[in-house]
């Protein structure tokens, strides 16, 4: 139940304006409204969700971006996300389905292994597949476990010298490996390139090559999916976005679609509202942005109001990877063509650096992730059909160089290369496509207005690690949360909105 309003609204239109109804914007807005704070949510698109949306083609509804949700956990052992859904009052509005395996990892002719979503079983499967590396496998899993648990514990210590000094003693694994690359740790444990690949196909969820990924990020990603199982939501991410929106409006929150914010109003170092594309000025005590701070500081705030610190901080960070996705409605059941689980990660070879290099070009894709939604959502496709998507990481850069006239042709050519890689594992798939749609980094730019169509925020290189960077507030009353302020993906962004909102609510009290 909404509490009493802890703020007085005298002089301003709203207590909080949340700009952007993506994952973090939605959870923040719902958190504010449910605490009795007068909240306005503005979204430029005509539907909530940002990336977390879907669109219909023929008999199919295509999931734009959700592949596997981490952090849900079971009803008996709820993970952080399930707990948060409870707090937001949406658990009875959505229907969650868990998977029993995290993925099938494939390199044509060299690797084909399914990793169970169970900590012990996952190790057993790998030990059977790579018996000579048993010992390394056990050690690696132990290290991932310690790393993850220490990462949760260390958070509150990282903001002061005193804390850091304590952390050396209390969280030695985190301190030792936090700024160590995943590649280095893998090489310390394993010889087989295929084994390393089997444990790193999630590099696509991280978006940078392994020599520039913190071991911590790899460890926490695998840990989260294996321990809390990958989940999916019936009706896809749109069902989640709609549920949070509903919870927000139920609590008295106001929402406006088709309403792009074109200026953040700042005076004397204090944000006091926004101006919309319709020329309207709306004031508030807090402006909460669900988009990149680059957008705010480079464009939406008048230059003379932008602190130099903000500019300096941003200049060392680069917009991260986007993706090209082929959405497919199939006219057969998945099993008819050999698909037996939701997620298949496919590499042309075991060379992640080469796969990453290709993500910056329009050369044939070297790495694709395939999701068949039927397994996690029984309602995902019409009877007798299948709903699937195929994704390749891609930077916007080569797409930006195309002439608009050549775009459609290039888009199909590129998607064709992705499909060819998939056909090595599921050879009959092409002949069963009934509906198909391709989205490129330019599509993400169009629908999300995000720098370079980035789907993960800044490139999550070692230079983004918590040990070397803190997200600071440069302007009073102005906050950012989303993929640009945290690690990428659903769980982190959904949590980031809630966490930041709670922090702000404390300053109100």
């Amino acid at each position, binding site marked *: 139940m909404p509490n009493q309003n802890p703020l007085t609204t005298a002089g301003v239109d709203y207590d909080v304006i949340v700009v952007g109804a993506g994952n973090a914007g939605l959870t923040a807005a719902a958190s504010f409204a449910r605490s009795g704070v007068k909240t306005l949510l503005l979204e430029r698109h*005509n539907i909530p969700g940002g990336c977390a949306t*879907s*669109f*219909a*083609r023929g008999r199919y509804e295509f999931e734009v971006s959700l592949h596997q949700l981490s952090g849900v956990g079971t009803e008996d052992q709820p993970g952080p996300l399930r707990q948060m859904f409870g707090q937001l009052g949406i658990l009875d*509005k959505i229907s969650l389905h868990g998977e029993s395996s995290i993925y099938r990892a494939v390199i044509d002719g060299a690797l084909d292994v399914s990793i169970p979503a169970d900590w012990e079983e996952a190790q057993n499967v790998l030990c059977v597949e790579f018996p000579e590396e048993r010992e390394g496998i056990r050690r690696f899993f132990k290290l991932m476990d310690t790393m993850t648990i220490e990462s949760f514990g260390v958070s509150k210590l990282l903001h002061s*010298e005193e804390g*850091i*000094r304590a952390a*050396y003693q209390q969280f030695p694994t985190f301190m*030792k490996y936090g*700024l*160590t690359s995943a590649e280095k740790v893998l090489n310390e444990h394993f010889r087989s390139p295929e084994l390393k690949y089997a444990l790193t196909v999630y590099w696509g969820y991280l978006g940078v090559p392994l020599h520039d990924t913190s071991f911590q990020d790899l460890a926490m990603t695998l840990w989260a999916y294996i321990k809390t199982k990958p989940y999916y939501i019936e*009706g*896809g991410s*749109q*069902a989640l976005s*709609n*549920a949070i929106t509903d919870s927000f409006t139920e609590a008295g929150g106001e*929402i*406006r*679609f088709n309403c792009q914010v074109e200026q953040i109003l700042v005076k004397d170092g204090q944000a006091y509202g926004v101006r919309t594309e319709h020329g309207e000025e709306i004031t508030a005590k807090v402006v909460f942005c669900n988009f990149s701070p*680059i*957008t705010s500081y*480079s*464009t*939406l705030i008048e230059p003379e109001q932008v602190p130099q610190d903000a*500019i300096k901080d*941003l*200049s*060392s960070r680069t*917009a991260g990877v986007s993706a090209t996705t*082929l959405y497919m409605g199939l*006219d057969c059941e998945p099993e008819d063509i050999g698909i037996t689980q939701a997620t298949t990660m496919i590499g042309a070879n075991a060379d992640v650096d080469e796969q990453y290099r290709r993500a910056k070009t329009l050369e044939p894709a070297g790495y694709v992730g395939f999701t068949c939604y039927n397994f996690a959502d029984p*309602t995902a496709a019409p009877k007798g059909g299948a709903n699937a998507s195929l994704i390749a990481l891609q930077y916007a850069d080569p797409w*930006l160089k195309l002439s*608009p*006239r050549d*775009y*459609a042709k290039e888009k*199909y050519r590129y998607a*064709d290369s992705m*499909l060819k890689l998939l056909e090595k594992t599921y050879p009959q798939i092409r002949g*069963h*496509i*009934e509906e*198909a749609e*391709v989205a490129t980094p*330019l599509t993400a*730019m*169009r629908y999300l*207005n*995000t*720098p*370079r169509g980035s789907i993960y925020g800044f490139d999550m290189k*070692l*230079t983004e690690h918590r*040990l*070397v*960077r803190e997200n600071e507030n440069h302007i009073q009353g102005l906050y950012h949360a989303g993929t640009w302020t945290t690690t990428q993906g659903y769980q982190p962004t959904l949590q980031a909105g809630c966490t930041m909102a709670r922090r702000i609510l404390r300053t109100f009290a």
Partner: protein
Amino acid sequence: MSDYKDAIPGYKETIERIHNLEENNPVPYNYWAETAKVINEYHPKRLQLRVSEIIAETATSKTLRLVSTDGYLPPFQAGQYINLFVDIEGITTSRAFAISSSPNTLNHYDLTIRKIKDGFISQYLVNDVQVGQEFISTGPMGNFYYNPIYQSKNVVFLAGGSGVAPAMSMIRELVENGDDKTITLIYGSMNLDDIIFKNELDQLANEHSSVRVEYVVTNPPENYQGYRGFISADIIQDILEAPEDNTFFVCGPQIMYGFAEAELRKLNIKRRNIKFEANGPPSDPSQEPGWPEDVNKTKKVKVTVTGGKSFETEAGEPLLNALERNGIVMESACRSGECSLCRCKVVKGEVFEPKQAHVRKSDKQYGYVHSCVTFAVGDIDIEIQ
């Protein structure tokens, strides 16, 4: 600086890297401008158009040649449409029209429009529009186009009336690009003199082996040698050697769709090989499966917009049209239930939505509808967010 962190392996190197980056890129890049440019080049929200030429096609149809007032038209795929905004009799409304010119020609878009008996907008566009007149439209949209990833290189177009417009765009593109596709156009018309583009089609079919054109005429003169009646399974079978090896695109008046679908089914054409163009709201929703039997389409119903006005309409009128007639303009494009731009929320009361409404599953759960194909069968309250 903060040397208490120096003992962290990798710390010094990483800080060094950050400083180097800061020095090399002193100012963050203006991504907003870059994105705005992409949107303007590919998917501008609105186009400002001027009629540069009007070409009489048949007694009932004309081609409006539209140029951009600022000189730039975005690319499109043959088969796509633009949604043209029209102000008539004090009402702002819009209608979608397929582009009949080639995607290679981006100095103008041609819209080929046939007037529909009692049609509100088509009558106006064919009868009253003058050269020099200006219009606003959306950018090109729609999913009715060829996808080389999975569709057969042998394309068959089943067109009726002005449904030939997207086929024309595809045929023009094919002959210009010299692709390895073939297009067979099977084109149905009521009368011989209703056939649009007849001369150009005959000429293209003559000159290019990749193009074939067959006419089917419903009411031909007695001595007519060609196909008669409607585009039936028999006629298709007679024209095509192996119908199942083709991708079929169907575009024409609504009554043609159910018929064409049944005929293609007789020929065992798989669903994946058939594409239907969006085609407006059902002209008589009470004939659609699921329409409540006890409701007459002329029944008066009251629509109340939360925080806005209330007005009366008839059960058989699409909600979007009723809103527009009452001065409430919503985003819209396809007006056929596909694009979701006209999404709004029904908070109270009963509505009817035909099968063509492609509403997201979770939108249904919360009462969201596509207003262009939603019919109030009783009094309703809606929310436009």
